[in-house]
């Protein structure tokens, strides 16, 4: 087990380094010039003087050889200093620390809504005896998956905020402001969960042990929740893991529409103006999140299902 963890740790460091290096390379391959973008304030460069761009390039060390820039930045990054935003001069670590809670709140709320909504839909469809109702319920997920996130968001905001004035249209203060964005972000995920869970519930309900349970006199509720759901939920739970990534990607759009100062919007803004330190900071953050989730999933998997146990662990020990 210790060897396994050590190996994972080594992998994690490698992933972080690779993410940092690849993002550095990609950002420098982009055609634009951060100094010009800064000087022109995101607009026309014809009214900017060469002295201005040269001075900016020098101030931010963008005129040094590429290898030197890479080395300096990597060295600082190793000490936890991800540099300062080229746009605002704020340390990148502080920008991320300010934006992260907003995004985590949003992501957690969205995952919760997705699980509850998707689960309820699948259970209701399996519970009902009415054929037409079941077909209607089962057709909803397809619509949920195909509606573009920003469109759903704008319709929700139009009705629930502008028209009926139930929730605020923008901001990230308090529970009220979390409702519309998290529902918007949750809908595609809820639809996926409903689809997967409904399908595996159907398979589970056709298994012989269900007949056995019914024959033993168990009620419909007990059969559905006690037997079928337990077996059917494993694929859906795996899906929740995958969805974490999607939720973070969807945050870019949702945070823009609902004016939340989170990581997604920060990233979109930084990419547009080639604020390299900020983009790299977000990439490193993403890599950390990825490393942690995969590690958690790998460690938890054997606990959930004894049959999956430690194949990786054994190879690790053997190696």
């Amino acid at each position, binding site marked *: 087990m210790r060897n396994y963890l050590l190996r994972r740790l080594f992998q994690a460091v490698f992933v972080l380094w690779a993410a940092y290096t690849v993002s550095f390379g990609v950002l420098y391959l982009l055609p634009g010039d951060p100094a*010009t973008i800064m000087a022109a304030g995101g607009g026309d*460069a014809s009214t900017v003087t060469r002295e*201005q761009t040269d001075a900016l390039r020098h101030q931010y060390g963008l005129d040094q050889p590429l290898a030197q820039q890479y080395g300096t930045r990597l060295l600082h990054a190793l000490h936890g200093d991800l540099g300062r935003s080229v746009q605002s001069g704020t340390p990148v670590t502080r920008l991320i620390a300010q934006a992260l809670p907003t995004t985590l709140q949003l992501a957690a709320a969205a995952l919760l809504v997705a699980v509850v909504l998707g689960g309820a839909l699948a259970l209701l469809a399996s519970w009902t005896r009415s054929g037409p109702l079941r077909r209607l319920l089962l057709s909803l997920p397809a619509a949920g998956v195909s509606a573009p996130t920003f469109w759903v968001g*704008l*319709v929700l905001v139009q009705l629930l905020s*502008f028209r009926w004035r139930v929730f605020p249209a923008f901001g990230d203060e308090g529970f009220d402001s979390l409702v519309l964005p998290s529902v918007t972000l949750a809908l595609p995920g809820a639809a996926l969960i409903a689809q997967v869970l409904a399908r595996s519930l159907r398979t589970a309900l056709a298994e012989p042990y269900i007949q056995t349970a019914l024959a033993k006199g168990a009620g419909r509720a007990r059969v559905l929740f006690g037997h079928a759901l337990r077996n059917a939920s494993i694929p859906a739970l795996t899906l929740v893991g995958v969805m974490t990534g999607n939720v973070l990607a969807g945050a870019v759009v949702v945070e*823009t*529409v609902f004016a939340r*100062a989170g990581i997604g919007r920060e990233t979109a803004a930084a990419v547009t103006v080639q604020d390299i330190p900020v983009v790299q900071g977000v990439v490193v953050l993403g890599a950390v999140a990825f490393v942690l989730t995969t590690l958690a999933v790998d460690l938890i998997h054997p606990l959930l299902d004894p049959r999956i146990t430690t194949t990786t662990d054994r190879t690790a020990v053997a190696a």
Partner: protein
Amino acid sequence: MPGSRPPAAVLASAVVLSVTLAACSSTSSSSSPSGADTKPHAGGHLTFALGSDPLCVDPHQAATNDAVYAARGLVDSLTDQNPATGKIVPWLASSWEVSPNATAFTFHLRDDATFSDGTPVDARSVKENLDAVVQLGAKSIFGSGYLSGYKGTEVVDAHTAKVTFDHPNAQFLQATSTTTLGLLADASLRRPADSLCTGPLIGSGPFVLDGYTPGKSVELSRRANYKGGSGQAGHTGPAYLERISFKVVPESGVRTGSLESGQVDAIAGVAPQDEAGLRSQGEKLLSRPNPGVPVALSANTSRPQAGDIAVRRALEVAVDRKEVVDTILSGSYRPATSSLSSTTDDYRDNAALLAHDPAAAERILDAAGWKPGPDGIRAKNGAKLDLKIILAPNFGPNQSVLELVQQQLKKVGIGVTLRVLTIADYQQAQKSGDYDLAWGNGTRADPDILRTAFSSKLLNLSHIHDTRLEDLLDRQASAADPAQRAAYVADAQRRVLEQAYQIPVFEMTSVYALGSRVHGITLGSSSQAQFYDAWLS
């Protein structure tokens, strides 16, 4: 093409538009007539939605209008500029003298002005601030241009400061009216520049900074012991508003809906397609063309086709500016009438040179040997007349405007290819010169922006080599006498149009919408919203 797909935000606003229109017909918010409540009074909390994150609220470094709204409240400047006449009027300085060659400027300060920490605003503060802006270098994008050639500031006595330059710098007087050269207290100037963007800041203005949360909001509150008010403000003494919250709301449809549903009091960056809806909801629209270079096609004169003056002159008269404004934009926008927009100091109306005349365009092209080909597009010596236009999506309607221009030009046999690029790609193309015409504009209340855009001594992206124009631009920069300077600027404007280095199309315009309880927001000389006289009923 990396940039040929429209950004999500543009699509999103189109969707909001259709939903808004559907909602309009059924809801009718009756704006109560303010009646007795017509006199300005103190108090109230105004919420104002911005289109983008200010990024930096330090007045010396603030680079966008969205940053200037807040920054303007934090600092007073030596002078102010009358937006209607362009005239420079007293503010912290009650009078000033300019040396005959525009290299030295002497300011006589009022003696009752203070910073919000109680320290006096004196001649030494002027020196400390200008020195600090120079120290910032390129971090103060505007300041580095305003103070180019700065030799130093001499503290003549407690209330007299003399600023000198190593070359004539006539635009400096207007620059002293900008937020960029506003005065901060010593306590702020002593702190490292990087830490100033998010505050705290101690300034000379009517408001103090309570906080700036990047990406989210800027909070200001009123300063009770403020004695100022510029020569053209509506009142003196403290501001009326108790507090102002600037909220960042990037999506234009969400800003519009938030104003209509009363979640904010006023918004910036109203999209042209939202104007009619807002008006029908009873919101007040406030707009003013941005001073500077209008939205225009700048020719890359080093290219064979765009380098042909006949082609450029034909472009000038083949574009139907009125049709562009009427069909794509809105009533707030105006067709361009010169190489400067109408709100720029020393602007002269040259509409005659730009009058829509397709027949004239055809005559010019015929005479220059550009003959119509089988598909209607002209050619000369076997080369087809096909101009490559580059544009960036920094203003929503850009692409629609240029698609219309493309149709207009086709009628006289000029073919154009549109290339929508990301901002980064656009700027790269401007530099590499791989284009015939570049779509863009530049904002500055002083006509010196012509020198920045067209002088061959500066960046010169148009590759212009015109000794006559260069001479005019140099002369206006060193003319201390305003009348004389205006004459040079007038000639320079005309020269740019006669040579058609640039084909101006429309004037970029700042459009705001205000809820019915908002009064007294004024637009400054750069068309930025100002809050000193604002009050709520």
